[in-house]
């Protein structure tokens, strides 16, 4: 389904007020000149003109630490309870199209073979209102990975700011229509319009099909070392990434009570591949960097048929040593 509407900024405020009481709303918020997704109660708190948040919104679905179950011992037996993964319907308001498209990858990853209960329940109650990009920066490269600043992939509703403080609304899914129905009279019907003149220009930095082929064929190359000398092996890139899904399951507690928790993990850590014997099949950072790049453009294509990079540029912006995934892909483009 696809239908088109218009809403003024003022009415968007009213729309938010209509949604707010019954839903949890997560939206970008400015904190010390950086943007983070936070639960918001007031429309005024939402940053509508940001370029990108520091961390992605994947934690709505796949939190940093997710309790799978709690156990406690009573009367010689173990009782197990599974905490409810999500209470209210949750709306992510104003995420960028690149982020919205990451949810397509995330749902594929978590639901394809094994249906992850927590993720499934959260996904059912999750609504995504995306906001086309007016501005982009050097790190943005969505157009290089098959997306664009006004893509509706993964969104339920997509908003694009056009003239006179008016937003052009694309209702992409049934869920999007459900949201509209909260206050349908705030919207005005319209025809499909060409969004291209209202959105940011993001130059294409590499050809994704070419990149897939190149990265596929190169495993042993001195370039991996040369390109990753600066990498120090922290987890910022993976933790900021909207599609990095690696996790580590830990039992926390004693023999009497505790929890099984799923935490984020990162292939940049040396502990990630370390065996119990002490042997590490990926002993040096260049091999870990290679794994990251190959996973994004090769392994996830093999497993799910999708590349796991949406071009949000978060890893580039937050890397303390300015490692740059685009630069790496370009290097192998030239090989």
């Amino acid at each position, binding site marked *: 389904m696809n239908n088109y509407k218009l809403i003024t900024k003022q009415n968007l405020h009213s729309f938010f007020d209509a949604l707010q009481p019954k839903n*949890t709303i*997560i939206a970008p918020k400015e904190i010390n000149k950086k943007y*983070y*997704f*936070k*639960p918001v109660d007031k429309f005024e708190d939402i940053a509508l003109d940001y370029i990108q948040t520091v*961390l992605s*919104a994947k*934690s*709505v679905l796949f*939190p*940093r*630490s*997710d*309790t799978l179950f*709690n156990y406690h011992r009573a009367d010689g037996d173990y009782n197990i309870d599974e*905490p*409810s*993964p*999500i*209470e*209210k319907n*949750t709306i992510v308001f104003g995420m960028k199209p690149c982020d919205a498209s990451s949810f397509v990858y995330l749902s594929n990853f978590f639901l394809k073979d094994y249906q992850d209960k*927590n993720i499934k329940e959260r996904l059912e109650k999750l609504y995504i209102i995306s906001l086309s990009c007016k501005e982009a920066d050097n790190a943005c490269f969505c157009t290089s990975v098959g997306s664009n600043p006004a893509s509706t992939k993964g969104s339920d509703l997509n908003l694009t700011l056009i003239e006179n403080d008016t937003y052009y609304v694309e209702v992409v899914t049934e869920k999007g229509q459900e949201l509209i129905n909260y206050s349908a009279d705030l919207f005005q019907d319209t025809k499909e319009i060409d969004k291209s003149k209202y959105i940011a220009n993001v130059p294409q930095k590499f050809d994704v099909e070419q990149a897939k082929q190149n990265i596929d064929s190169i495993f042993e190359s001195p370039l991996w070392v040369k390109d990753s000398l600066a990498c120090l092996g922290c987890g910022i890139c993976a933790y900021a990434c909207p599609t990095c899904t690696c996790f580590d399951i830990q039992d*926390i*507690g004693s023999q009497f009570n*505790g*929890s099984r*928790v799923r935490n984020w993990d990162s292939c940049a850590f040396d502990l990630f591949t370390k065996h119990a014997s002490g042997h590490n099949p990926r002993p040096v950072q260049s091999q870990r960097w290679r794994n990251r790049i190959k996973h994004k453009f090769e392994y996830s294509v093999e497993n799910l048929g999708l590349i796991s990079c949406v071009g949000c540029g978060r890893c580039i912006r937050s890397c303390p040593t300015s490692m740059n995934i685009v630069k790496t892909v370009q290097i192998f483009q030239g090989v």
Partner: protein
Amino acid sequence: MSEFEPKIVAFVCNWCTYAGADLAGTSRIKYAQNVRIVRFPCTGRIDFMLLLKAFEEGADGIIVSGCHPADCHYTSGNYHARRRWMVFKDLLDFIGIDSRRIVFSWVSAAEGAKWAHLVNDTVSEIRNLGPMKEYKNLENVSSNKIGELIND
């Protein structure tokens, strides 16, 4: 409601304070029952992580005790420990953990009575400070509430 009974964990060295506590026992000196003693080879072995773990596991107060200066079985373990405690205490103060909940002391093998006094004093001080709510309010495991799913 019954009166608050503080839980005290005592990290003591094997050669002096543990023997001192033993002497208190063999001398039939009665002291508060709130203390759980953990024996270490030396105060030099008592890492700050152990003290944090004790708080995490529900201790309201901690006693750290070993040999008097110049008495260390390993010559200098207690001198090293002394420096570490000074610095650690300052860090706890800076973070806002009540450093009065950690009591440092020297108790020799001959000071059974001093040990009993130390435990009694500590118990009554911690009783006045009340339960260590702050640490207990910190959750060990993240909650699944949606507002907190976003790491802020």
